[in-house]
């Protein structure tokens, strides 16, 4: 029998969009090839990537087309994965398995240290689990950066007939995709994090609220839940712990935790006033820990290696690593996991590789559609929660989008405000009415009939929305618009009626 050569090819949605699906179709019938569909390493500028084993570890071929097969089979022209600078300079903990394993093979997950965190959690008391998370100083990675242990403690101490664990997989911030990668690429890591949380707070059920735009993620996760069930992992203190995947229906504000809970209950995703916080009264009025996918996926390592290990990474107030997601006009867009503490410039240069050919830097936006814009003069900003808070900005979910010289700031500002007008849940007036008024003003300026008073009005409107909105959508919406005006005033002035 002739030995087929094992070739590794990502099955990640973006890798498939880059051409991995085409390669799989072209090669699936070739007897000399055995295709292993892995997660993606996140170096998306190189996808589709094909890898094979070698004495020096994996060898990789980049931007592969079907006709490249003969050279891959002969071993010509491959690059050792260990020598790819984009990957070498990263500190991969949460994303350590990416590109290595088949997402739905539990044995592979376990062989690389998976389930050790859960084993620890089952051995120690719930209080000890929460203590470990407290020592880790992990803060929520979805955007709000709230201390994770604190939510767990509140939910643990609440008295109720049922408690829930909810993973927020409604990754709506444009420019972010790390949750999608985890759901598709290492789903057992998310489940392990949720099970550890369930044991800590004494939860009865788990939910993953997954956005409709991620069908492959939902399907992979459901398959992973099935496998975890078969392996009898879905067990908390001797009771079956069911985990259900609930799909959204295209509403951005459902990524806000209380709107998300409303949506799981089947109602319009309208924000609830806080307090009470979900940890006190959440899903169906019961204590509920709601955390982002990336947050839960960070938990297993903290339990396996200890909270102190995690706390030793990063900066004073931002411990651990962050999954940064590069997009826009950088040369090398992709996933970058590094400890907090690098500057924006370092990330854009070392990992982004500078600007895409033909592009000149204009501004970078951090933290999704509600994040502030930074001009070239502010690139020495440190990537950590405090430095961003001091600058009135947010790190959000780690999305970093670079705009080049071709981006018109007035058009971009209108785009931001229109997004909020479209997505506002309508519960509070500043957001519902303010965003519509904001769009009207910016469209006036776009059309050349705006006046200097309109710019003052925008600032005024922004101040009201910041101060009086019920959630971060209205509260943060003015930031990208006002930072665009602050850093590129001439572009706005030039469009005013003379």
């Amino acid at each position: 029998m002739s030995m087929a050569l094992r070739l590794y090819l990502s099955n990640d949605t973006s890798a498939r969009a880059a051409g991995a699906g085409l390669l799989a179709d072209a090669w699936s019938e070739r007897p000399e090839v055995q295709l292993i569909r892995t997660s993606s390493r996140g170096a998306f500028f190189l996808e589709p990537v094909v890898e094979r084993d070698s004495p020096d570890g994996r060898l990789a071929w980049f931007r592969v087309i079907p006709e490249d097969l003969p050279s891959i089979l002969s071993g010509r022209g491959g690059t050792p994965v260990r020598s790819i600078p984009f990957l070498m300079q990263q500190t991969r903990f949460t994303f350590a398995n990416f590109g290595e394993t088949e997402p739905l093979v539990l044995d592979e997950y376990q062989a690389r240290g998976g389930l050790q965190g859960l084993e620890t959690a089952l051995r120690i008391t719930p209080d000890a689990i929460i203590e470990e998370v407290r020592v880790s100083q992990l803060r929520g990675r979805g955007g709000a950066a709230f201390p994770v242990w604190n939510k767990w403690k509140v939910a643990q101490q609440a008295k109720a007939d049922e408690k829930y664990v909810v993973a927020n997989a409604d990754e709506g911030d444009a420019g972010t995709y790390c949750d999608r990668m985890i759901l598709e690429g290492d789903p057992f890591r998310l489940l392990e994090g949720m099970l550890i949380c369930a044991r800590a707070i004494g939860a009865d059920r788990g939910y993953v609220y997954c956005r409709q735009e991620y069908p492959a993620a939902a399907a992979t996760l459901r398959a992973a839940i099935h496998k975890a069930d078969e392996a009898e992992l879905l067990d908390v203190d001797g009771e079956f712990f069911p985990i259900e995947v609930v799909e959204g229906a295209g509403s951005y504000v459902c990524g806000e935790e209380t709107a998300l809970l409303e949506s799981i209950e089947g109602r319009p995703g309208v924000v609830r006033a806080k307090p009470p916080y979900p940890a006190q009264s959440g899903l169906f009025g019961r204590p509920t820990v709601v955390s982002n996918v990336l947050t839960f996926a960070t938990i297993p390592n903290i339990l396996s290696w200890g909270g102190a290990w995690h706390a030793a990474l990063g900066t004073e107030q931002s411990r651990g690593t962050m999954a940064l997601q590069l997009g826009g006009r950088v040369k090398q867009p992709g996933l970058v996991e590094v400890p907090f503490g690098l500057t924006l410039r370092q990330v854009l240069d070392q990992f982004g590789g500078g600007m895409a050919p033909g592009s000149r830097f204009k501004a970078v936006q951090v933290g999704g559609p509600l994040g502030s814009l930074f001009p070239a003069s502010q690139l020495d900003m440190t990537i950590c929660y405090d430095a961003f808070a001091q600058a009135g900005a947010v790190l959000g979910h780690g999305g970093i989008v670079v705009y080049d010289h071709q981006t018109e700031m007035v058009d971009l500002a209108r785009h931001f405000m229109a997004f909020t007008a479209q997505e506002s849940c309508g519960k509070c007036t500043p957001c519902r009415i303010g965003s519509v008024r904001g769009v009207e003003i910016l469209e006036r300026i776009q059309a050349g009939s705006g006046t200097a008073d309109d710019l003052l009005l925008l600032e005024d409107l922004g101040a009201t929305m910041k101060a009086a909105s019920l959630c971060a959508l209205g509260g943060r919406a003015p930031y990208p618009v006002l930072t665009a005006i602050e850093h590129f005033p001439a572009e706005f002035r030039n469009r005013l009626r003379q």
Partner: protein
Amino acid sequence: MQEQVKEILAQEKSKPPNILKALLLLQEQLGHVPVEAVPVIAHTLDVTTAQVAGVLSYYPDLRVSAPGRHLIRVCIGESCFANGCGRLLRTLQDSLRIDVGETAAGGRFTLETMSCAGNCALSPSMIVDRDLHGRLLPSQLDALLDHYR
């Protein structure tokens, strides 16, 4: 239609009744949620028509009319904005002779935008039915759409 709606809703057994799940199930099987069905949905789930209408009008993905045979959703998220999704969208509008939200003559395509496809490292992106396409150039669109008859 009433019987068909009731039959489909019999598969949705959440307690208390879950309106969103029920509507998503209907849409999955009927292609859309007919407005005329709102009273029977409300009756079957034992909720008010206002509650059903509230959920139906709130979620962007719930549709009250059938889309064209193929649904094109152009991503207008920030990374796609930076990478020229505007040109992509205008090219589609011109070649299909429709605006966003409309269905082309003959019912072949419905054109929509979406706020992020999560494919930001391969911008600009669009989704046709369930197929994600990235690194798109306006010049590639004709050939791409030829695959969808």
